[in-house]
């Protein structure tokens, strides 16, 4: 039932003792990184005598990570690093997280713990439909499943026909998938004349990387006749494996032996009483390569109170309710409006005003970017305008990794750039925001 009973079911006092001890040793390690040497050194760093004192430490933000590019957060000699993961995009510096061999091993173990918790065993066949590469979703689950001992099919995302072929031929029992893709895949299954509930050995899906509603999860379960479990992670902490649902499917256990979690008011940064919804702030307390203190995840959630019937003593967080910044998640890909704005500004022939619309069609997100043709550059031919449209589309694809629908409009069609123009319109059915 437990991957590691001792780690998963400690008494709260001993878990908190472990957290304090790991937090203090992380503080020490973090001091080796130039960024923390500056920020903590200035504020008179000392060992903390209680977990509550963590709120005296400054926050770390994504902007800090970008500004300290490339090595400002590296806390060990480079020779001890075996891998890096990084955000995509070329607007501004990417955020880079370094992993030592021990970091990778701890991460694998956490992901294996998550999978084992839901009932996955070495006899399972695991098909990983997430992107491999710099994105942590694919590799994180891959190594976790191998650690657990299940046969892993590193198929990556897309190509539904091939996904279905592998699932059938190898009797896939567990998949890791974007929630939207789980539903789209089922429509492809039906197009092939197959029944997702009867013609597969599938019994579980791990869904994450994009916000989704409880209704979507239930629909995935019903469509495939399986259990679907929510997964939460972020590359700054390691990747997937930060928090995960147990078979109770009532909130995600956040692995407090590795991460110190706080919920803060996104406006003031003040810690909120347990149970209130706010921004999740995480400190990685078991990592060496890039330890982060009080990282602002921008994800909105809350702690769920009370013990979990599964027996694990790690607290649970609610499904992610939204973001406290303007980050958009398009089919699992994280995109900031600023990336789009800066890309558009580099292209001549279009005006300064733009608008982003996120549509949903057949469980797939579609990014629409509306821009104006700059009248002074119009030469009068359709070919020129079509060429410009193609150029904008290619530039946005290169920057964001997502192929947008580019709508070219006449000058004056969009709200002017001054003031608080609404730049992003999300037309998807979103998880209800309770914060």
């Amino acid at each position: 039932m437990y991957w590691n009973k001792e780690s998963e079911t400690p008494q709260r006092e001993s878990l908190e003792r472990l957290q304090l001890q790991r937090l203090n040793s992380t503080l020490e390690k973090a001091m080796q990184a130039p960024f923390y040497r500056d920020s903590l050194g200035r504020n008179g760093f000392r060992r903390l005598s209680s977990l509550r004192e963590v709120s005296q430490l400054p926050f770390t933000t994504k902007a800090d990570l970008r500004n300290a590019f490339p090595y400002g957060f590296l806390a060990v000699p480079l020779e001890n690093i075996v891998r890096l993961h990084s955000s995509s995009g070329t607007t501004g510096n990417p955020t880079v997280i370094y992993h030592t061999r021990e970091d990778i091993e701890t991460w694998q173990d956490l992901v294996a713990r998550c999978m084992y918790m839901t009932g996955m065993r070495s006899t399972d066949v695991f098909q990983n439909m997430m992107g491999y590469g710099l994105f942590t979703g694919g590799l994180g689950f891959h190594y976790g499943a191998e650690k657990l001992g299940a046969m892993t099919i590193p198929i990556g995302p897309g190509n539904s026909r091939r996904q279905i072929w592998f699932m059938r031929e190898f009797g896939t029992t567990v998949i890791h998938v974007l929630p939207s893709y789980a539903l789209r895949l089922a429509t492809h299954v039906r197009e092939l004349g197959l029944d997702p509930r009867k013609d597969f050995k599938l019994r579980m899906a791990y869904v994450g990387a994009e916000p989704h509603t409880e209704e979507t999860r239930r629909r995935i379960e019903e469509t495939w006749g399986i259990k679907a479990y929510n997964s939460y992670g972020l590359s700054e902490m390691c990747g997937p494996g930060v928090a995960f649902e147990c078979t109770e499917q009532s909130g995600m256990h956040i692995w407090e032996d590795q991460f110190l979690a706080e919920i803060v008011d996104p406006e003031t940064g003040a810690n909120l009483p347990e149970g209130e919804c706010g921004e999740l702030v995480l400190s990685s307390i078991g990592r060496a390569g890039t330890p982060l203190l009080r990282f602002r995840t921008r994800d909105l959630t809350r702690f769920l109170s009370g013990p979990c019937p599964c027996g694990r003593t790690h607290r649970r967080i609610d499904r992610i309710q939204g973001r406290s910044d303007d980050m958009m998640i398009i089919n699992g890909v994280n995109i900031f409006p600023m990336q789009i704005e800066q890309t558009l500004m580099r292209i001549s022939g279009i005006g300064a005003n733009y608008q982003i619309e996120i549509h949903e069609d057949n469980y797939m997100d579609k990014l629409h970017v509306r821009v104006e043709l700059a009248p002074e550059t119009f030469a009068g031919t359709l070919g020129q305008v079509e060429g410009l449209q193609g150029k904008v589309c290619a530039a946005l694809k290169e920057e964001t990794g997502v192929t947008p629908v580019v709508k070219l409009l006449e000058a004056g069609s969009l709200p002017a750039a001054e003031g608080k123009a609404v730049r992003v319109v999300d037309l998807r059915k979103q998880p209800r925001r309770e914060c």
Partner: protein
Amino acid sequence: MAFHLSIFVVNEPGKLEKITRVLTEKGLNIRAVSMASTGEFGVVRVLVNDPDAGLAALRENRFTVVKRRILVALIEDRPGSMHELLVTLAARSVNVEDCYGFVIDEGKRAAIVFEVEKFPEAERSLAGTSVRLIADSEIYRL
């Protein structure tokens, strides 16, 4: 040099009507209209009797519009005359980029409006052929 107007429009009901309204209000006479579209957006060509006035009026109304140079050929309104014109253009390697036409007197005369790739060259290479290019001053009076 003769010109028509080239206007960028998004494909939406009422867009063309706005163009003709602006031109009507200025008392401009539309001789011919043509449109090329991707389905999402298009470029409308309008031949009016005073392209500069049309350009100013449309710009005033925030249209994305430019003047583009044209050649206008006069042909007979009978079977085969368009073909004869194109044979000559092909023989002289004149590349047509845009083209539309309209009848002036039914059964007698029609005008064919061209945008061609290379302007003075195209004009020169058609001199001495059977193609009757209309003088600029006449075009707007058609």
